């Protein structure tokens, strides 16, 4: 039966000719025996950043958000930039776990677990900022439509800020459930290898998983259904976030392309963050056989594609601003390019549009140091994109007498550093205590040729 093609082009997904037994022992080593030497210093660093953030947040809640650099013209700046930045980071996780599952892209199996963890932690970091921005975070339950003694005065469902609550809430819940569901079989693996207290703990969380064929069958259906739900969800989340801006009449904010443009930008920044994390993690955790050059190349291609689309969106915005004939639109974009925040615009274009173009070249994709640098640049560039959109559009509004500028205070910077602390603390805890690579999925892609041939045998018999 020579008609079954065995592709000689594609290298194996997992290197080192691993057996399922080896996969189990490789992945379980860290949760069972502890991580390598680099883990503790990294964790302490992250924890100190988190502590700095906690101090800053406590201070600004006590004193009030007058501690920020906001003013009457620039009412949104650092906090909302960080909010959009973190939500965007999360999107790659869902894309890898849901969209690539639907597209049957098998290379996702060794990175989807950690990318999903990244999603959940990034959304947590994002949630912190609007919460503090409320000024009275202890009244945060007012965002929910509950019967109250004020009439009942319901929340305003026409407000994009309320859509955010529902979008982020749903996104967090579904991502968490999807992540946990994917982990159940692997937690069962840990359970069956553990003794004593740890065994009891893992038993509790593995929900009595026994790997029966009937359960696996339903499990796969559930994963596909959740993926089919998570895919439009991830698109909706950043569309809703973009509506925070696009439903306003502020020039530079109101443009119909914003929802899809934000979604692509989010995927772009998210994949850059996954690249950054994975390049570090494969070294530190010794997962070079699992997260291979092929994975890095695949993610580079996504980055260069989405980066180019983002560039196209910038160009469309500029062209239509001129084409619209609206003096306000034209001013807003002239001000972005040549106003006081021109340096931020230059960083944004340089990091998001120019730098990733290097990834068209195969040599660059295969030089991990360069990929790492580009991924960092994209992270920086995407942060500045949100900063440019928010601050550069607001600081010179319709009324020249109220034009002003904005600079972040130390409190705001400390809070931002703190959000990185929160993110890395959680991520490092995840790497330490949970199976960082989805064992049950990796085991299915160890021998692709064999699987292919057996399928052919079945159908051609």
């Amino acid at each position, binding site marked *: 039966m020579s*008609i079954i093609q065995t592709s000689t082009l594609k290298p194996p997904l997992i290197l080192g000719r691993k057996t399922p037994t080896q996969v189990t022992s490789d992945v379980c080593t860290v949760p069972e025996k502890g991580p390598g030497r680099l883990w503790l210093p990294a964790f302490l660093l992250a924890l100190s950043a988190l502590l700095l953030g906690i101090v800053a947040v406590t201070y600004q809640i006590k004193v009030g958000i007058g501690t920020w650099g906001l003013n009457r013209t620039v009412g949104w700046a650092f906090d909302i930039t960080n909010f959009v930045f973190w939500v965007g980071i999360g999107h790659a996780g869902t894309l890898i776990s849901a969209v690539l599952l639907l597209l049957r892209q098998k290379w996702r199996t060794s990175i989807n677990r950690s990318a999903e963890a990244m999603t959940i932690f990034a959304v947590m970091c994002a949630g912190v900022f609007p919460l503090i921005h409320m000024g009275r975070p202890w009244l945060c339950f007012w965002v929910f439509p509950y019967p109250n003694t004020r009439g009942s005065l319901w929340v305003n469902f026409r407000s994009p800020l309320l859509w955010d609550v529902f979008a982020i809430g749903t996104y967090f819940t579904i991502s968490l459930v999807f992540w946990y569901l994917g982990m159940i079989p692997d937690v069962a693996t840990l359970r069956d290898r553990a003794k004593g207290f740890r065994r009891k703990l893992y038993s509790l969380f593995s929900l009595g998983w026994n790997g029966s064929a009937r359960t696996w069958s339903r499990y796969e259906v559930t994963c596909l259904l959740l993926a089919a739900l998570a895919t439009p969800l991830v698109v909706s989340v950043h*569309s809703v976030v973009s509506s925070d801006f696009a439903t306003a009449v502020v020039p530079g904010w*109101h*443009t*119909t392309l914003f*929802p899809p443009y934000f979604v692509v930008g989010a995927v772009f920044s998210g994949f850059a963050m996954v690249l950054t994390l994975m390049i570090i993690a494969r070294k530190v955790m010794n997962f070079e056989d699992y997260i291979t050059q092929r994975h890095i190349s695949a993610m580079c291609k996504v980055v260069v594609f989405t980066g180019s689309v983002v560039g196209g969106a910038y160009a469309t915005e500029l062209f239509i601003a001129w084409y619209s*004939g*609206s003096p306000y639109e034209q001013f807003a974009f002239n001000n972005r390019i040549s106003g006081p925040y021109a340096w931020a615009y230059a960083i944004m274009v340089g990091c998001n549009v120019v730098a990733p173009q290097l990834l068209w070249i195969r040599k660059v994709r295969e030089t991990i140091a360069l990929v790492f640098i580009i991924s960092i640049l994209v992270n920086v560039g995407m942060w500045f994109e949100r900063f440019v959109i928010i601050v550069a559009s607001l600081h010179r509004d319709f009324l020249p007498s109220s034009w002003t500028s904005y600079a972040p205070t130390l409190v705001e910077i400390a809070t931002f550093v703190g959000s990185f602390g929160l993110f890395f603390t959680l991520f490092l805890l995840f790497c330490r205590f949970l199976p960082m690579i989805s064992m049950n999925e990796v085991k299915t892609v160890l021998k692709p040729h064999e699987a*292919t041939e057996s399928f052919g045998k079945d159908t051609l018999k």
Partner: protein
Amino acid sequence: MSHPNLHGKIEFTPPARLMKILAIVGILGVLVFLGGLILAPHRIWVGYLVAFNYLVGLGMAGGIFLAVATLSGATWANGLRRIPEAMTSSIPLAALLGLGLLFGLHALYEWTHESVVAGDKVLQGKSAYLNVLGFSIRLLVFFAIWIFFLRRLVRISRQTRNEEEPGGMRKGLVTSALFMIALAITFSLASFDWLMSLEAHWFSTAFALYRLAGVGLTGIAAVTIFAVGLRRTTSFRNIITGSHLQDLGRITLSLSVFWVYIWYCQHMLIWYTNMPEETSYYLLRNEAPWNVLTKANLVLNWLIPFLVLMPRAACRNETVMLRVAVAIMAGQALDLFLQVGPPLMGERPTFGIWEIIPLISALALFFLVTMKSLGTSSSVREENAARARGWSTTESPSP
């Protein structure tokens, strides 16, 4: 399960009678157009512009299909490649229609009227872009670029049958990537030129993407129609399998949802901010009698495909897929009519022979040239058939 005929040629001979009918309808369209120039010069151009854009969309969709399939390494689509390859053959015809369009600019576009521009500051500002010379040059450049890339894409797609030739693969990847970049620029500008500038004051950054989503949706519907047709009339049944149909159904479903997503983004954001220069676009379209068509547009392009194709089994059903594809083809024609009609017809849509015949004969010509091209290119070499079959089995999704 029937075995594929691995050694014989699998050929498609276009049915002579059908081809004759299509040719007659095509010629009829030309006659009606010429008659319309004399009898109803203001109405005929509406139908002409709709037909022109429809034909361009169908041809470009073939190229987009090939490029996306190559870039994403979608080996499952190899068995279908002949169809999008053939679809691109309608682009030279569309280019011809494009040349004809240059004679109708005055009837269609407000910005060509010098007296109007003289009294309008905004239009004066745009005249550096919106002028007859620029429009004509751009139109020629678009078609030159498209024909160049489509010919290359089709040639590579037909040559690189064996995936184990990395050289051929690389050439395909590079051409596809360059085509997509060129397409992003040229297609955006083309949609601004040909459709958005009908309402010269109105603008929307999502417009090009909206058109692109529509083109993708029409294209996949056309591919489905040909796939089902080939399955029913030829031994292509062995190459175009049930899992191909299912994949087409899944793509149709996602593109339909994507189309409505862009529709909603544009509509909601303009509705929400309620700025006069933007809402003008929806003023006519959301009021009676146009609003009936606006709703029908959503039903045909989104609601029907979404509800019908949601169960997986429906995607494997030839008849269901064919009907949904026809609904989408009709829906996309309606969508174009909704772009072109309101600014030129005003409050009441008029719909008669001058609007419908150009569209129908353009469709007839599309089917004519595509089937002719399929007839000449369809002889599939044996290893090609085997490969397509091998892939379609190995890549079939888990139940």
